[in-house]
């Protein structure tokens, strides 16, 4: 495993998410956006807390520490 392959893995995953988001926003698309998926999870109070805490942890991890 090299540094380049590891970084490529991250970039490929993020790029695929961006492509999927664009596809989901095309007119007539039935693919849900990332926001739709999170909204679906957040319909339940436990999912709501989990999503918000996950978001908060990202801020804590990268900004506070």
């Amino acid at each position, binding site marked *: 495993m090299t*540094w380049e392959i590891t970084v490529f893995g*991250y970039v490929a995953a993020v790029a695929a998410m961006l492509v999927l988001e664009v596809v989901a926003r095309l007119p007539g698309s039935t693919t849900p956006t990332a926001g*739709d998926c999170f909204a679906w999870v957040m319909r339940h109070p436990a999912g709501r807390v989990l999503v918000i805490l996950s978001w908060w942890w990202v*801020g804590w991890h*990268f900004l506070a520490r």
Partner: protein
Amino acid sequence: METGEPGLRPHRRRALGWGLGAAVLVAAWAGGGRLPSFAGLTYAVVGVVGVLALVAALWPGLPRLEAPRRLSAPGWQVWVALFTAFGVWEVWALLAGDDPAQPTVSDLLDPVLLSPDWRGLFWVAWLVVGWGLVRR
């Protein structure tokens, strides 16, 4: 004061909301980017933002964007697969320890976030995403 023009007050309220949001983001970029790591003030600010977001997300009666009743397949499975792949890749790098050939996302972002400008942009992105989630 009532002006007799229906729609004016929501319009002004929306403009005020956008103005306030823009002010918060500018402050986050300028101020947040200069908050030091591992400092009490930074812990407090991030903690307060988190508590406010959690309260706003759970507060009953706040207007929300409509959630889809169901998600179409295979779209949501692709999202789950991509997030899982990213997570597995990250955990694999984490388990590799200090191997420089397998950096974690933190290893890659920490040097970037030393710059106040990039750190400020991360603050802005974090708050925008948080606002998007709280409205759901």
